[in-house]
């Protein structure tokens, strides 16, 4: 009974993971930066799908909304607006390769240490039981956010308000000679001041 349904998610997991790795390799090897960004979007979408397998639907939705919906679109705009010489950027690839290999090895060591600790029988942390909440974790998070952490949530809202006011205060300039729209003048304008009817003698071809 347990065996058959577990095969299907396993196939999905390995299939998506393979795609994810392929897309990630594509991000760093694509010649066109726009292709890189689009492949990165694909990475995020596949990661979201893998999270869905873990029944972390809130994380999956947040990842797509925040990263794909906002951050990646912004990045795409930046990449499209800048005239980047890709070949010039690639010049440093071999120079930085040792550093990249070092970072890669460190990451691999960290990942394998987790696997090794798990094998040695050390209980690191209880695996998240996503079925603990009957209503799904989006609702559970919402309940927590609007009861226990309501105060912190509201203060975070005030921090955002402060950020808006601060950013506008520091950037909005009222210079002289700026060509801004004067709505009141536009509304108050009278036809006489714009159109002048001139009486002329009709001219005829002789």
């Amino acid at each position, binding site marked *: 009974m347990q065996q058959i349904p577990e095969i299907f998610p396993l196939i999905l997991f390995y299939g998506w993971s393979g795609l994810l790795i392929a897309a990630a390799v594509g991000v760093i090897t694509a010649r066109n930066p726009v292709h890189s960004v689009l492949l990165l979007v694909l990475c995020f979408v596949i990661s979201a799908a893998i999270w869905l397998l873990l029944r972390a639907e809130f994380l999956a939705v947040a990842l797509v909304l925040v990263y794909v919906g906002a951050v990646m679109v912004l990045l795409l705009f930046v990449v499209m607006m800048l005239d980047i010489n890709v070949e010039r950027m690639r010049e440093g690839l071999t120079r930085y390769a040792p550093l990249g290999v070092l970072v890669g090895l460190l990451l691999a060591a960290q990942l394998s240490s987790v696997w090794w600790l798990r094998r040695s029988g050390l209980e690191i942390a209880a695996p998240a039981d996503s079925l603990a909440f009957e209503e799904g974790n989006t609702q559970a998070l919402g309940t927590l956010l609007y009861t*226990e*952490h*309501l*105060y*912190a949530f*509201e*203060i*975070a809202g*005030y*921090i955002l*308000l*402060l*950020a808006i*006011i*601060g950013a506008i*205060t*520091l950037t909005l*300039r009222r210079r002289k000679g700026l060509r801004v729209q004067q709505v009141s003048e536009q509304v108050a304008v009278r036809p006489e001041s714009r159109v002048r009817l001139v009486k002329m003698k009709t001219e005829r071809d002789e």
Partner: protein
Amino acid sequence: MVMDLTSWAPLYPELALALLIPVLLLVDLAVGRKRPAVVQAACLAGLVLVGWTCFAAADGAMFYDAFVMDRLARLLKIAGVLMSVVAFVYAPRDLRQAGALRGEYYLLGLFALLGVFVTASAGSLLTLYLGLELLALALYTLVALQRDSARAAEAAMKYFVLGAIGSGAMLYGMSLLYGLSGSLLLSETATLAPESVGAYVAAALVLTGVAFKLGAVPFHQWVADAYDGPPLGVAVLLATVPKLASFALIVRLLVDGISASQEQWNLLLIVMAVASLSLGTIVAMAQTQAARLLAWAAIAHVGFLLLGVVAGGGEGLSAALFYTLVYVLMAAGAFGVVIALEKQTAPLDSLRGLYRRHPGMASIMLLIMLSMIGIPPLAGFLAKWQVLMVLVDQGFTALAIVAVVFAVVGAYYYLRIIRLMFMEAPREQEQERLKPGWGASVMLGANGLALVVIGVWPNPLLEWCRAAFGPG
């Protein structure tokens, strides 16, 4: 579910202030550009109401203990409202000259005050950090408010970068505390076993963050620039209101939150206190700008109040609280006088002959300077006396002697100001009589009077400070 309004009683001050901010935003939008005085009046009137709610609010904890209203929080909130009122009365004159008088100044000041409120009432790591960030973000923006000034921009950049490093260190420590104890509540992180390496690292990082916020040596580099770079009207706010949040931070995070490792951080605190006292006092002697002198003096004063925390216990903390309250009063007054000089950047020389230009103001500055030195019967004397008494009681006699030595050394630069004001003639280009305006005059008078009254009749405030740390 029927909402019972009285169950929100501990939250009244925050609610009132959170309501005042959007109201003032609209007032500023409606009339701010034509009549900045209306915005100021609305802000002061609103603050009076907020101050009243501080008295009216009930004691109690809310939101699963993430919010705590107790005597300490109430005292700090009332002091915060008072200092904001004082700053908002002094500041406009200077800001108008600097071309930075906009409604946003009051708005950002109120945001900073809300940050002080949240920090003072924090019962969990999360609310504590959010309160501090609210305060810090408002202050970064205030320092950069005078946009066309390179000095203000430089100060804001330094303050922002160093403040962000401090916040980062503190946040790292907090995340370790949370990871080790499994709880955000300060009452539960306090029970963390002090022997583990993680707890040591967490305590060290948290202490680093606290020292950054306080401006204690060796994390003091931002102080002088942050005081001197922006207009003096911003500096007066910067020198007073955040100090209250810093004190709340010490009590909530160090004394309550990581009390288990007190022996370890007390040692670090002693080192920082002595370093702040010595470096602050010595460097202040070499300053020629009034704001920079006050900044270095502030570092020395931070050292003094840390000594109260080192002595520990209810007595030590109430002495440190009393010191903090008296200090912000003195700092506000000193900046008030410097603002009244109507100098964009006030070199100490512009205090020359102040007695001939305005005897009243010179007398108030005299009171403030004598109080800063610690001459009886002024408030500054009692504040120092309290800290020294507790130190000796707790067996830190050597520290008390060091503190007295640097207090005497520090008298040099305060006395120099007094000599400049009373015994020298005004500079040739500054002969005319000063007209500080009636609002600032009344406030300066009240400020000077408060130092005398607290000095002669300190018991109500002292009792209040003791009650904040007393049982029940």
